[in-house]
């Protein structure tokens, strides 16, 4: 009987080989010192003779493992030792599976991206609106709300229709192909009330009189934000910040009724 550093009782067998008991274990435990490396484990037996036998077996196994390790000095992870080389098959499989992966990702993307489209509710709210033109006096303008934007509906006077061609060389884009009033109905002009510069709402100034912003004002829209000028058909003047004409929303005339928005 001897005591090791931890104070456990060791039964000496050979040099670097001993048995010992641990407090909580009913079994014999083995202690091995193989070339300076210490191994300990439970031998899973209560019988001392058996424990000695197991200890010897364990030691020879360890020695064998060690010598094997020495022999194949460059032992590697088993999987890396025997690589299978069949490159064409492997490549083909890689390509097919990458394609499948790409299709899967794209397939997942479709619903998530589509979900950002206007919902049925948004479409219902954005559906076309009707406006009764019979009550709009010549020269007057009505503001109709469509898709949360103000829509300007102007009833043109004969005077205004006469004046519009006179402005052709003062506006950037006369778009005569759209008709004089830029509308399918000569008498009415329908415009989005959103300045094409930075989205302020232009003001309606139908009077034909000199204005602070224009000596020869023939009526039109003036944007107070940065001073853009448009004529009564929403055409933009040259030399103002706004780059393009006021937009014409999709609309149709059905007798005295104006329908703003697409027909479904």
């Amino acid at each position: 009987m001897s005591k090791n550093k931890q104070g456990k009782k060791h039964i000496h067998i050979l040099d670097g080989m001993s048995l010992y008991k641990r407090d909580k274990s009913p079994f014999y435990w083995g202690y091995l010192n193989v070339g300076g490396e210490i191994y300990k484990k439970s031998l899973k037996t209560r019988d001392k003779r058996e424990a000695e036998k197991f200890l010897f077996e364990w030691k020879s196994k360890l020695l064998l493992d060690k010598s094997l390790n020495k022999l194949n000095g460059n032992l590697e992870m088993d999987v890396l030792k025997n690589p299978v080389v069949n490159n064409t098959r492997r490549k083909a499989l890689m390509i097919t599976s990458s394609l499948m992966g790409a299709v899967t990702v794209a397939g997942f993307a479709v619903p998530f991206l589509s979900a950002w489209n206007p919902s049925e509710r948004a479409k219902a709210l954005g559906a076309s609106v009707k406006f009764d033109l019979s009550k709009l006096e010549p020269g007057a303008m009505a503001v109709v709300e469509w898709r949360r934007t103000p829509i300007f509906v102007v009833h043109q006077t004969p005077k205004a229709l006469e004046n519009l061609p006179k402005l052709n060389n003062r506006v950037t884009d006369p778009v005569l192909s759209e008709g004089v009033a830029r509308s399918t109905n000569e008498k009415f002009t329908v415009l989005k009330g959103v300045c094409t510069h930075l989205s302020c709402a232009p003001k309606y100034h139908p009077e034909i009189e000199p204005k602070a912003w224009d000596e020869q004002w023939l009526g039109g829209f003036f944007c107070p934000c940065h001073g853009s000028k448009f004529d009564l058909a929403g055409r933009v003047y040259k030399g103002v910040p706004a780059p393009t004409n006021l937009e014409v929303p999709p609309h149709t005339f059905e007798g005295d009724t104006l329908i703003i928005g697409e027909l479904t």
Partner: protein
Amino acid sequence: MASEKNTIMGWVDRRLPVTENLERHLTKHPVPKKVNFFYLFGALLMVVFMIQVVTGIWLMMFYTNTEEGAFASVEYIMRDVEYGWLMRYMHSTGASAFFFLMYFHMFRGLLYGSYQKPKELVWLFGCFLLFLLMAEGFLGYVLPWGQMSYWAANVILSLFGAIPFIGPDLQVWIQGDFVLSGITLSRFFALHVVVVPLLMIALVVFHIFALHEVGAGNPEGVDIEKYRDKKGMPLDGAPFHPYKTFGALPAIGIFFIVFFAIVFFAPTGGGYFIEKPNFEEANFLKTPEHIAPVWYYAPFYSILRAVTFGIPFLGITSKFLGFIIFAASIAILFVVPWLDRSNVQSIRYKGMYSKIAMILFAASFITLGYLGTKPVNELRTIIAQICTVFYFAPFILMPIYTKYEKTLEVPDRL
């Protein structure tokens, strides 16, 4: 090496060691070369977690978290939003899938001793994740504001009211109102979409980092770290990529087949995933005839109901005792690493008693789950009580039987 390359990646690596860390923690991380299908649930859980996060974010874009708007907004998602129904069903099915995979993943842990030294922390983080998942599921279930959302939440919240002294005040504090109301709904929404998911992400990161520190286990319970090659890699290991990544792909495929079969053909799961009363808006005055929890809470709900007696001389009511035992049924999982005294990891090398214990545990868990979805009667209560005992016994007796039973010798190599 990569850092010397004159490439964009090389430039980045000299400043932020991306390649090195990817290789160390992901692509070249060694894992045991031979495992079985039980070891795939972790990867699938990551997939489900991602599905839940992404569909959840999208649902959040259309959902209204008010008492007046919640129910209608769910129907808005189901009808008016393009593919909204798909998002919603993926999210609701994902919740069930999450629990299903989680239960298998944890059962794997119990079978193969994935909680033993030095993996205690991995296991603890996992248990916390189960707890958070249960909280997340509960909070999320309230959001559609249907009849079952409302009344099931009512039942669970009134449990807090059973705690002596502070109970009633605590319940009111959690609700933010004297009854469960829109105020509660709003805070549950915040918890469900921000607080709990953030905690879960953090814990998943800890769970995986801790696992990489101590190394993944295997069904044999062999320590692969013992024999290493010259570079210090375990001989019985294999680099994570391509062996494990490619191994996970077919599993993900099979998972998606089952998952989408449910999403497209049985999204309500016969009333187990989305219950019928939940298509009716919450009504404070009318309780549904039969309140059943969703299947994944059923075992624990059963344990709660099985406690039909209190401890009168201690002033503990049956309701409170039920709550304690219900809480204990989850809490006991946390201490498993310190209950197991076995000198082997895997059930394959453990003794008879361990095997019987695992079967008892699994059988009682399933039976409790079945009973939890059914209305109570006398016989069912007795069975539930017996099963509750069998649920706890394998854990409570674990220190004894694992220490004394005869185990087999574990091989050295995989």
